[in-house]
């Protein structure tokens, strides 16, 4: 299952080189922040890819882990815990949330699963807005992990490191038995279960791994911008953004989330500057156009299955046209 054939490998190397060398050419805090955001979301997209791409479970609640990481860091440091320890604690607790959410959500399939992830993230947001310890709607300050001059460069490199880590995890997953089982679950969960794969276990594992990485991203983000409110780190828009980046870039591929992040976030920032109040309109049009004309995502090769192959039923139900892996002949695919 060598994904990295031919041009894809070169694209990857080019991206990596550009990413590492970038700060040498950019001396401007604003651009550094924009690139930080782009690379961070590439990492988040790659993390989501484990659940949404390989396992084929469309989660739209990933912001719960992002926000848990962010708020975890803020709350622990507010109680005197040293920042790096707080970082670790925050990520671990977020992973614990993932275990709880996963146990409930994975009993469901298809759109039911998606809706339950949305509900879980929204419940978290509402709880955070209502409690005092989280600052409610007023929000919390978060300490910067790096407090030296030019710290944006450090944050940028942290994001690159995280992206690299998530990429490696993706790479390992795509070649390992774990990944193979996930893809089997994605293609046909009932059959996978019938041949003896412990589907609940593997789905949960992919979620835990994904949540762990996402929470790291959330804590990093909070630390960089140093102030969080529920609206900025627990908003469903972030879940949707992560999913869109990966799906439009190409879910289940290695390069897809990266390309998606670069293009979509870059576009978003450009539109904001250029179009001010109309930027969301342009962004919406962009999404519609890409969905209509680029059915396989930008890095291609996903959409093979026809919908309606199985009769739809709730909870005992079928997967509806899940994305297939690039370059791998999918069951019943073209």
């Amino acid at each position, binding site marked *: 299952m060598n994904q990295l054939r031919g041009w894809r490998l070169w694209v990857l190397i080019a991206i990596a080189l550009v990413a590492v060398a970038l700060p040498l050419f950019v001396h401007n805090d604003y651009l550094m*922040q924009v690139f930080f955001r782009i690379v961070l979301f590439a990492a988040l997209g790659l993390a989501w890819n484990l659940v949404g791409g390989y396992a084929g479970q469309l989660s739209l609640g990933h912001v719960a882990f992002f926000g848990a990481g962010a708020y975890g860091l803020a709350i622990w440091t507010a109680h005197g815990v040293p920042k790096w320890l707080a970082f670790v604690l925050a990520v671990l607790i977020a992973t614990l949330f993932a275990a709880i959410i996963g146990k409930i959500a994975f009993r469901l399939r298809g759109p039911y699963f998606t809706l339950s992830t949305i509900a879980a993230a929204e419940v978290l947001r509402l709880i955070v807005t209502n409690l005092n310890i989280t600052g409610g709607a007023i929000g919390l300050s978060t300490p910067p992990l790096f407090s030296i001059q030019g710290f944006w460069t450090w944050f940028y490199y942290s994001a690159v490191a995280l992206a690299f880590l998530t990429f490696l995890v993706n790479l390992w997953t795509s070649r390992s038995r774990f990944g193979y089982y996930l893809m089997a679950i994605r293609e046909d969960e009932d059959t996978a279960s019938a041949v003896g794969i412990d589907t609940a276990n593997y789905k949960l594992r992919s979620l835990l791994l994904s949540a762990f990485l996402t929470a790291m991203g959330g804590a990093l983000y909070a630390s960089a911008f140093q102030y969080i409110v529920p609206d900025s780190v627990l908003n469903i828009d972030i879940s949707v953004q992560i999913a869109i980046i990966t799906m439009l870039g190409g879910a289940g591929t290695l390069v897809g989330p990266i390309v998606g992040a670069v293009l979509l976030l870059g576009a978003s920032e450009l539109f904001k500057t250029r179009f001010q109040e109309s930027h969301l309109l342009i962004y919406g049009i962009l999404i519609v156009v890409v969905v209509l004309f680029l059915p*396989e995502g930008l890095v291609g090769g996903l959409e093979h299955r026809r919908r309606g192959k199985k009769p739809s039923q709730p909870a005992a139900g079928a997967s509806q046209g899940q994305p297939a892996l690039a370059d791998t002949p999918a069951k019943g695919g073209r």
Partner: protein
Amino acid sequence: MRFRSFVAFLAVLSMLAVVPAAHAADGNTVKIGVITSLTGSQAAFGEAHKNGYMIALDEINAKGGVLGKKVELDFYDDQSKPDQAVQGVSKLVDQDHVAMLLGSYSSENTKAIINPVTTHQIPLLIPTATADNVMDSKSPWVFRICAGAAAYAKTWIDFLKKNGDPKTMVIVYEKTNFGQANMQAMKAAATAAGIRVLATEEYEAKAPDYKAVLRRVKDKNPEVIYFCSYLLDATTLMRQSQEVDLNPRYYTAAGTGFSAAEFPTAKGAGKNAEYTLSVSQWLPEAPWPHAKEFDAEYFKRTNTHPQYHAMQAYQSLMTAVQAIANAKSLEAAKIRDALKNIDLKTSAFGPVKFDANDQNQHPVLITQIQGGKYRVVFPADVADAKPIIPAPKWSDRH
């Protein structure tokens, strides 16, 4: 299919190739950066800000600008999120090289930019954020033109003590930063002054039905109800208070919704608004010069009356430009010093002078709706009517 995909791919790429040229500092204009919430949950207020800024901009440029050049505003939309506001500081200062900053709208977005502004060493004038923690850092670069939440609470306590001295209160507030911050400020001030806060009722703003909340308040039977509500919730709250037959001695509020121009009219709560007391930083009936003209100009442009947010934006820009004129320079440190020493005896927003903490001691007014109109009832030196207390019961009103 492959070809189509490739073409579309190129099209998408080309959209990004339209890289905005870094704005070279145009030698012919004075650029002032504005961060506000043009989209997102606070967009309505960001819009009000923008309208206020534009009216001021047009007035300033009609008089020739400042230092012999026209003034140009560089807006950045923070999408109602604090991390975007932080990014805005970098863009406006590092990329666009503005002379100084105004903004943002909400308290959390403003608090978020205090550190970056201090690090970048650029003066910031805050128009609207009222949370007290915004000024905590005591940064020499940060100035606030509006009164803070603690000032609201203090003024209320003064007023209540002098007008009937009630002993119990319930605070009803919306689940936002504005609501929570004002609830906390009032709770602290009231308790310190010997008024028992029987309960604090939080609600999800913009809901259609608050009757359940109001019934809970009625059960507690407080003398004073203090609302921290925006805009149209005020209308719903008063209408439903009447339905629920809630009769405290005082209906009071932390401004905004209860100070909106439309509130006492048929477009708002109409007769239900009568006797409500509210705090305000400014209203068209304020005893300051140019207030009515601003109201008229705003109405001409937008077909609605301005709330004080728009005036705060207007006056911030006016003050900023005055400071630049006084400094006779675009150097950040000189503008900062000019702001520190500025002393406008009067303006459309009242006197502007920053104290040792760079806070403008803006007088807070208390108004009451009498006969369908706002009357200023406190402080005594600017009052034009006496307050009517207690508010008559609903059943006694016609």
